[in-house]
């Protein structure tokens, strides 16, 4: 699904990723952990195509195609989804209108007609039930006045609607209370299939109790310095990151 080789990237001449390798296969869940400033969010943004960053070296392949030159919307059309750490507000645009536009633009890019309103409505109903979202919520302006938990739930709702191949959850757990965390994690688990893949970026083990990863990677100083299975996350939770830093010396 996703294959990143020797990725080096910088922002304003400051090097952030320094030769990162990562392979994610369909049906897998990968967790990326690491201390603050390790480059976790940068990695998420670069995969999604944010143009603040300059890729100086390496490749990003999605299903065998190099996507590093594609515009962010083209990557989205190819099935990349990023659940934002800080979702932005768009006043006056309802959640429903936004997701409708997103779905139809993606369909347009694939040469398909707009989704019939009836189908759209049915899908919205199903997915909002899955994530225990109140229907009234859908008519509110996108993220405007949303609580932290509502914002994150809305991200996962969009993910459910767009059915991406590769979903990257950037600190989706931050700002969530334990109930919201459970609902969001349940949603992600139900959306998981053998055809898609999920990358979970997080600081804490907490979310991984619910979304159990197949692989855990530790990102430090722009590189993946350690990989393991779910037990690595538990070890990190207990010991912190310092022992890994020391191991590297």
């Amino acid at each position, binding site marked *: 699904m996703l294959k990143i080789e020797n990725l080096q990237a910088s922002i304003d001449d400051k090097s952030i990723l320094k030769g990162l390798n990562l392979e994610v296969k369909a049906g897998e869940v990968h967790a990326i952990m690491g201390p603050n400033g390790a480059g976790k969010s940068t990695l998420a943004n670069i995969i*999604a*195509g*944010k143009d*603040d960053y300059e890729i100086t070296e390496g490749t990003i392949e999605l299903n065998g195609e190099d996507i590093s030159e594609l*515009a*962010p*919307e083209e*990557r*989205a*059309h190819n099935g*990349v*989804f*990023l659940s*934002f750490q800080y*979702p*932005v507000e*768009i*006043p*006056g*645009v309802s959640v429903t*209108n*936004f*997701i409708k*536009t*997103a*779905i139809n*633009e*993606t369909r347009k*890019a694939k040469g398909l007609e707009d989704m019939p309103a009836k189908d759209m409505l049915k899908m919205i109903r199903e997915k909002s039930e899955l994530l225990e979202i109140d229907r009234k919520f859908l008519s509110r*302006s996108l993220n405007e006045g949303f609580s932290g938990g509502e914002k994150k739930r809305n991200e996962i709702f*969009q993910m459910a609607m*767009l059915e991406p191949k590769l979903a990257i959850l950037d600190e989706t757990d931050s700002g969530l209370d334990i109930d919201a965390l459970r609902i969001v994690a349940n949603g992600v688990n139900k959306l998981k299939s053998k055809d898609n893949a999920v990358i979970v970026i997080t600081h804490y083990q907490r979310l991984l109790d619910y979304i159990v990863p197949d692989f855990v990677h530790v990102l430090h100083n722009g590189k993946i310095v350690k990989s393991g299975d779910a037990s690595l996350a538990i070890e990190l939770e207990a010991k912190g990151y310092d022992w890994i830093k020391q191991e590297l010396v």
Partner: protein
Amino acid sequence: MSKYTEDDLEQELKTQEYKYGFYTDIESETFAKGLNEDVVIAISKKKNEPQWMTDWRLEAYRVWKKMEEPEWANVHYTKPKFQDIAYYSAPKEKPKLNSLDEVDPELLDTFKRLGISLDEQKKLANVAVDIVMDSVSVATTFKKTLGEKGIIFMPISEAIQEHPELVRKYLGTVVPTTDNFYAALNSAVFSDGSFCYIPKGVRCPMELSTYFRINEGGTGQFERTLVVADKGSYVSYLEGCTAPSRDENQLHAAVVELIALDDSEIKYSTVQNWYPGNKEGKGGVYNFVTKRAICETNAKVSWTQVETGSAVTWKYPSCILKGNNSVGEFYSIAVTNNHQQADTGTKMIHLGKNTKSTIISKGISAGKSQNSYRGLVQISSRAENARNFSQCDSLLMGNDCGAHTFPYIEVKNKSAQIEHEATTSKIGEEQLFYCNQRGIDTEKAIALIVNGFSKEVLNKLPMEFAVEAQKLLEISLEGSVG
């Protein structure tokens, strides 16, 4: 075959002659450039106007001659040379085309994207149409329906002939000839426009929009509109067109007067899409308009405008809330792109008791444009318990444009309640990236954000027009983010 009488022959000859005369007139008579009393008299004569009308025009001309062109607006342009304009020129015959294939493809593309029907496209592009075309029969039906209700809706030049008592009673009562430089000029030389009268207690059964759009697509340089809603009546009136207007005339100085008598309501919506000039700011229409309404007891007037065109816009649709309990509303979206300049807003003059006004202004600036809101809320000493709410929001795109707000508030009665809110925001990189990430390209993302920003005003437009206006915003802002 029925008998062909001498009378018939005579009749035919007469009409024939008239027809010929009419055409020769149009072709031969475009007045020489410049403006003086003789020209004003000649315009009036040309239109076969009664003496009172000629005198009215002359008085306006004399006032205008002594006036100075206003300079207080936040716009910069080369002033028109008033003696270099021909003040009476026959309506230019646009070349008749045989099919849509002959129309400029760029124009057609715009029509298509605005969702204008094929028949209307033909009408707007001046393509010869079939006599059985839908809109023709629709227009006829409309005329019949309006007639049955006693509603008068016709060109003002015709109204001066057919309903002189009504025109004479109301013309210039809201915007007097002495009001301002452009209003005075308009009064002296206005070519044509519309007159609308809704009788007592009549609710106009349709938006006058569709009818208007089909039939009065082309407007003159000095347009004059007069709408009178008699006691207890209601009308929703729409002027303008979302379709781009490529007019040869650079200066447009229209006057619109609305008279809302006791317990009546007028909704007046405008979509203005005159030629804004090219990307470098060359050319484009100067749109200097005076629009004002007077509201008697319990009357209500709503102005809704979507302004996307013109190189320079200078326009303040206003309400004089004369009667007790009268209500004035102003909802505006003004978009400026490239080198466009707009100085627009409203005046709410509260004279009566318990008068209420609402102002919602949405300014969107892109490119190198300048967008100003200028509004006056005036509460007179007699206006007990007057209330006003104003909200002025500006949205900026890029770093080279400007948004300005000039609110004036004058209160002479302590019982007044005035609220003013203003916000300025910018379409951010983060917002665009968020949309992009969801598969929405930048162009579409801007449209989405702008529509969200303008929603409160778009909602005030008649339904079918709101959809077109929404698309118009999209098209106006195309290419505004590199």
